[in-house]
């Protein structure tokens, strides 16, 4: 073997160095390419969602002046709510149609081939219910002439969001070009405006024919209830289990088995948890289908492995010297864990928990199985004596997205994208909270 020093210039690279440098450069290029693809995909995703969904936060409305004839709405003249409730939305429809007709006549708008019925179709089917609710809330309005703002129908709304055009209206059985021209004329007079739509966040879901009225109120409430259940159950159980397994449990075959199975559970498809929830909580436990408590329990089962795994990782990362130090001054095992190890592991535990919660918030499949896909228009109460805590039927945000994408009217596609934006905003808020809390914990030393 030749052991004498090699004679070569440092100023020129030998073949081996060149190869090594080339390999390194290639690896860096792969990495950059991977990141570029990822960023590109993210940008496309976000533009697509924002492009489709932002318009859901705006809604076209028509301002009308309507007379509320006592003869029709309150024949008894007593203004008794119970009596007035007997008057259905069918009675309110023509009142609105007349209001619109008056407005058209007043402003001298003339559109060729527009029948009175067609003109009335500009107003959403939901509008008569809106008006009825308003009258029932304030019976003194009856007999007066009031100014109200009602929703325009989904197609008219779509016209101002670029979904519907005069050309497409020719082919559409739900809207005629004449209606669109009328809408344009109303807009010119300032009677039809497209403005911010807070009802998207507060209103309940609406039926297939009235996408303009559909909102996320029930879904947000349902998701919030489930997150409360998951947080209250999964965090203490998960953290306690991890502390026991990591700090106290003897290391033997049984704990190994438990450990392996926790990792396995984290990989179980979420729909399996749905079947489990259906079988145990609804069929066996007798809880009500579609209830947030059931959804919360199922999501808790699903989130537990995530929380346990991340908590154990956080506990493991606390240096053993801290435990030695605590034991060395005569702290008990529990004191060393709760006074020293847990505070140091808290940021990691917190991050794991919030990641678990975020996962649970976006989970759809198990909720479909326990019936949270149902059409729910009533806001679920947090507690009722009949159904218990979080026992009233509800839906959830991701399920609402799924639900809306199933519907025929393209307006629901816009709503679904809008709901995704809401979901993403919630996830962003949760992550931001995680980061802020982590900073606050870490800044202590």
């Amino acid at each position, binding site marked *: 073997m030749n052991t004498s020093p090699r004679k070569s210039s440092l100023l020129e690279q030998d073949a081996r160095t060149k190869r090594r440098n080339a390999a390194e450069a290639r690896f860096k290029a792969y990495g950059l390419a991977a990141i570029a693809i990822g960023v590109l995909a993210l940008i496309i995703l976000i533009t697509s969602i924002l492009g489709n969904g932002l318009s859901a936060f705006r809604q076209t409305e028509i301002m009308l002046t309507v007379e509320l004839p006592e003869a029709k709405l309150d024949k008894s003249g007593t203004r008794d709510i119970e009596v007035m409730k007997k008057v259905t939305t069918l009675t309110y429809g023509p009142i609105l149609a007349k209001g619109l007709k008056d407005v058209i006549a007043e402003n001298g708008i003339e559109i060729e081939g527009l029948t009175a019925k067609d003109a009335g179709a500009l107003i959403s089917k939901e509008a008569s219910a809106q008006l009825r609710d308003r009258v029932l809330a304030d019976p003194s309005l009856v007999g007066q002439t009031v100014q109200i703002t009602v929703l325009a129908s989904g197609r008219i709304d779509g016209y101002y969001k670029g979904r519907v055009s005069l050309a497409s209206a020719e082919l559409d059985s739900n809207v005629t070009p004449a209606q669109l021209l009328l809408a344009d004329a109303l807009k010119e007079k300032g009677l039809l405006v497209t403005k911010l739509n807070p009802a998207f966040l507060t209103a309940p879901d609406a039926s297939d024919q009235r996408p303009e009225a559909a909102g996320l109120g029930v879904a947000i409430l349902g998701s919030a209830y489930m997150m409360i259940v998951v947080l209250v159950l999964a965090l203490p159980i998960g953290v306690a289990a991890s502390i026991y397994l990591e700090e106290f449990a003897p290391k033997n075959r049984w704990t190994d088995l438990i450990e392996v199975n926790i990792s396995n559970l984290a990989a179980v498809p979420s729909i399996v948890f749905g079947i489990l929830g259906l079988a145990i909580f609804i069929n066996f436990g007798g809880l009500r289908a579609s209830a947030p408590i059931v959804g919360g329990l199922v999501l808790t089962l699903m989130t537990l492995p995530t929380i346990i795994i991340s908590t154990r990782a956080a506990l493991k990362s606390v240096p053993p010297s801290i435990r030695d130090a605590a*034991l060395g001054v005569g702290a008990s095992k529990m004191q060393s864990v709760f006074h020293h190890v847990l505070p140091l592991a808290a940021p990691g535990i917190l991050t794991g928990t919030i990641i678990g919660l975020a996962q649970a918030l976006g989970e759809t499949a198990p909720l479909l199985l326990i019936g949270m896909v149902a059409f729910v228009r009533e806001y679920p109460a947090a507690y009722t004596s009949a159904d218990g805590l979080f026992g009233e039927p509800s839906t959830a945000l991701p399920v609402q997205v799924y639900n809306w994408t199933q519907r025929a009217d393209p307006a629901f596609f816009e709503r679904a994208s809008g709901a995704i934006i809401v979901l993403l905003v919630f996830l962003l808020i949760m992550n931001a909270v995680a980061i802020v809390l982590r900073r606050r914990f870490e800044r202590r030393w």
Partner: protein
Amino acid sequence: MDDLRIVERNVTTQTKITARGVDVYYGDVHAIKPVDVDILDKTVTAFIGPSGCGKSTFLRCLNRMNDTIDICRVTGTILLDGEDIYDPAVDSVQLRAKVGMVFQKPNPFPKSIYDNVAYGPKIHGLTRNKAELDEVVETSLRKAAIWNEVKDRLQSPGTGLSGGQQQRLCIARAIATSPEVLLMDEPCSALDPIATAQVEELIDELRSQFSVVIVTHSMQQAARVSQRTAFFHLGTLVEYGETGEIFTAPKDPRTESYITGRIG
């Protein structure tokens, strides 16, 4: 060995810890073969020996820190003031309040300097009120010769101190619970010579109140601070006696080889 400064040897003869036939197993490995040793009160006892000879393991037996290692098994008897510390009735927590420990790497809690020292007295309920606690913290920090450096910043984090200061803080923390025995596992291995000198001086002062057992790699250090020295080799206690004798007239050839640098 001319440079050795052999310290005064006014040794008491009162035994603090008696170990008889102590074996330690790590799983199947027989880490320490029967060790008999008597550790005297108010004396600094040094354990020396090459790496892996079991001196730290034996030290950790004295306050049952080995309990925290699952695969570790200790047999034989260790008596502290005549009481068997491995008796099932003994709570290791109470034991460790009596037998304090300082570790190789300075390991202050990530809390304030004050809280570091106050932690032991707090969990053992040694003080009745804040004023007493303040006093304990101050005396402990004074004894550990670090009071003057930290008295103006007791609320700043203990982890922000230098290595030597951290180690003295750990010593203050260990003596705050007024232990009877102080175990030190290579307390100076992570320190520079100046900090080492400070800690050594401190150990000599501590001798007036505690029985100190120190594990060290440095024979010079053993010679400087201890009155009695035990030499471990390959898991056995080879020789135990007065420090001066061990270093000047070792009886066992292995001890002689080690202190003259032929093995280790």
